[in-house]
């Protein structure tokens, strides 16, 4: 469901504590009216009752037609803060009063909505585990107009989920077979590879690869890129990592992030899943998606 619009079907209403007290007062009034057979006392109790009845309509109407949806929500790594946007919009020409918004993990708020107004609420929550994280349900309520009735919506079942990537482990070297003699992955390339082009310098690039000529021309730091027949391509395998399942996954995650940042061609070899090496931009996302849900 893309959007959750409030209507009769998902709104509920009950009297508040004040509403209960008021109904007792109303009953007492009616008893007096009956006992004294007093027409105006009758009329007054009926007027109060009918006003409450009318306020039922107004309470319901205050919520009817409000729509809830989620905005942009980016995947994060486990242990980090997930931020998402909740959009509450009034699609009608009616003004809304005293709308209470309850989001799990957020402070509850109350505010008015004018005609066609829409409100973006930035929410954040800390996610601990990788995988799908269902965004917390939202409940919208109101006690308008008299505070005697409380109407609320069934917490929005938008079933919006956000992907949480595994938390990356502490840096460890790439699997030994790729590191060779050098300590850093960037140095693994041999110098006699074919020069393929220049790219913007990134932290961690070997000073040997910096193209000093361009720097001297005042065009900033650039690194030479090599594309050779023995250009390393890495396939991170399940067996390269050690430890239990989660530890392995987080190590793989770390490697993927690093490889992606350095533009290394890499692939993934998991039990039952094999991803051919590539240095495509989407390679990282693909791998992380897979690991998140593994």
């Amino acid at each position, binding site marked *: 469901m893309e959007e959750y619009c409030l209507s009769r079907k998902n709104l509920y209403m009950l009297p508040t504590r004040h509403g209960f007290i008021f109904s007792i007062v109303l009953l007492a009034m009616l008893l007096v009216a009956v006992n004294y057979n007093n027409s105006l006392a009758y009329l007054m109790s009926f007027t109060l*009752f009918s006003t409450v009845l009318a306020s039922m309509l107004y309470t319901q109407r205050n919520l009817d037609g409000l729509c809830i949806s989620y*905005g942009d929500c980016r995947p994060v790594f486990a242990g980090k803060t997930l931020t998402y*946007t909740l959009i509450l919009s009034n699609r*009608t020409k009616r003004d809304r009063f*005293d709308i209470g918004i309850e989001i799990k993990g957020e402070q*509850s708020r*109350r505010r008015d909505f004018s005609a066609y107004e829409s409100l*973006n609420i930035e929410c954040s929550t800390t996610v601990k585990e990788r995988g799908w994280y269902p965004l917390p349900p939202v409940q919208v309520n109101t006690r308008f107009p008299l505070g*005697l009735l409380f109407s*609320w919506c069934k917490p929005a079942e938008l079933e919006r989920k956000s992907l949480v990537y595994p938390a990356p482990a502490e840096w460890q070297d790439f699997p030994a077979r790729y590191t060779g003699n050098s300590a850093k992955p960037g140095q693994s390339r041999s110098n006699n590879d074919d020069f393929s082009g220049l790219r913007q310098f990134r932290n961690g690039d070997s000073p040997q690869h910096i193209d000093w000529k361009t720097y001297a021309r005042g065009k900033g730091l650039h690194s030479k890129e090599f594309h050779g027949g023995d250009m390393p391509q890495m396939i991170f395998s399940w067996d390269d990592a050690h430890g239990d399942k989660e530890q392995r996954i987080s190590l793989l995650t770390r490697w993927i992030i690093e490889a992606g940042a350095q533009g290394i061609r890499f692939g993934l070899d998991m039990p039952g899943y094999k991803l051919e090496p590539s240095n495509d931009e989407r390679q990282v996302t693909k791998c992380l998606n897979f690991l998140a849900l593994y």
Partner: protein
Amino acid sequence: MSFLTNKFHISSGQELPPDRQALLSLICAFFLSISPHTGRLPAWFALLAIVVLTWRYKIITANVHQPGRFVRISILIIVIFLLFLHYQTLLGRDAGVAMLIALTMLKFLELKSLRDYMLVVFLCLFIVMTSFLYSQSLWLGFYLLAVVIILFTVMMYLNHRDRSDLLGMLKRAASLVLVGLPVAILLFVLFPRLQGGLFGLPGDSHSGLTGMSDTMKPGTINELNLSEKIAFRVEFLAPLPTAQQRYWRGLVLENYQQGTWKENKDGKSTGSLVKYSDNDVIEYTILQEATNKKWIFALDIPISKRAGLRWGSGQTLRSDSVMHERQQNHIKSALVYKFIDMSESELAINMDVSAVTGERVTELAKHLYRQSASDRDYINKVLAYYRNNDFIYNLQPPLLGEHPIENFMLDTRAGYCEHYASSFTMMMRLAGVPARVVIGYQGGEWNEQGNYLIVRQSDAHAWSEVWLDESGWVRIDPTSAVAPERIEYGISAIRQLIEQGQELGNLSQQQLQTVLTLSILSRSLKNFKLFWDGVNTRWYKWVIGFGSKNQISMLKWFGFKQANVRILIILLVALVSLVVIIQAWILFRRKKVLDPAVRQYQIYCQRLSRIGIVRSNSEGPRAFARRVLLLRPDLRELVLPVVEAYIAIQYAGKISNEQHQKLIRAVRNFKPGRRKIALNNS
């Protein structure tokens, strides 16, 4: 139900602490609520109010401590004790209301949370209701309606987060009451009413009613003559009777003892004492004010009655029960009638002169009778005697002595209807002609605006009936011999004439006209009074007097064969649901059916808002598109077709099916991807 038990509990959510404004508005609302009661409360209440409310105000403004429980309870006990001293009881209407007001006042001392404030509002509503136990006038109704709306406004104020728009709240409260009104009226009309109270009518609900008594003693000052209070109102189906015919028969008094006329308890109580022709029958509805008595006034002479009434002696009407409230009766009367025979015992009572004292009056009667040819002639002789011997119509006659009849006939010769009726009847009996006194009302004021006749307490009258063998009981009004104006123009004219020092009985038509013509001002005042009485009458007839009888007759009018509580309830539930459904339909109807193009455009805006680009309300389509492209130049190919198609339809007027399809396609294709994921792995 999980949604009930989760963390969103009904009573959760932040309640706003009521502020000083809230307290002030509550105090105002409280005073407005109790204002109709102020005259009835003990004087020390004013002191209590001042002390308590100032104290309360200081608690908020000057940080005085709220009184502890001990202080509060001791004040409560003292107040209850004082109330008991004042009323001698704590039960009943008066003491109950005073208690309620006192408790509400004391509640002000412990106001803290929203709940306390709301409770005070509820108590105020209850106090408002109790005002109706004392008066149900139209003005009070309007005033208290306004107070109820103000109390609702206070409730809104207390519950609302944004408390700045007080006027808006007042408007909303008023419209809330207005929307509720149809249901309130339905409930009022159809809610089954009980006859009498739940626990029997409380004794204190009726008091201070004035009206005619069931005895007549000429010479006692009769306050009735001065009261402008309304006795009853009459609506006629047929043309109304002339002034001379407007005799409203109440009671027939046949026993005379110790100068006092009383009803004959053993009199015949059937309605078949008279013969009449159908041509002379007149039909009317009479709305009689509460009297705390049983008798019903009817135009001379009633011939039929509705259920719930019975016949009294001498062809008069009675109610089955004491009339604690207004009662409406539909009655038929015959203007020309003839009484049929009379029993021996009745005859004896109507000729009884044992209580008459004084030699001279007996002599007078015998003297006049001797000169007469027949009974009818004797009547004329006696009337002529009144006319020729300087009898005066006087509302404040001198007191009568030991022999009231004799004193009046021969000495004081001044009095009003009771004197004349009483003396005339006795003059008849002294000569052996059966006679009796009838009391009731005579005359009435025609209300043009309302098309009904108003009969006031001051129209109270007494006259005589004389038995003539050939025509039965004949109405003779001896007052008319002395003051024909009384019958022709009514008691108010008489009073005016007396005030101006005119001599009654021999005024020319012109003189009368000049005296009785009102100035424009007083005429319009009178007209306004009549109009207001008309409004009030309808108010009482349709609102205050509405009861189970009206409900039954209403159901019958609608064609229900049976009229019982069950039908009322079924009808009530059905109609209330119908009204609520219609109201809901009106209220929930979306004000503006969205144009399909606008709908598509909204989808586009919505998708943009999901990627964080929210259209401001005042941003036109082109300006918004420009901003979108500034933020996301990559969306150019997607945005432009949508905006162009939308503008073409909405503003350039290129409305065609093709154009709509184009827009729909463009919007369908419009799927702004998310920005690239930023991998912050630090």
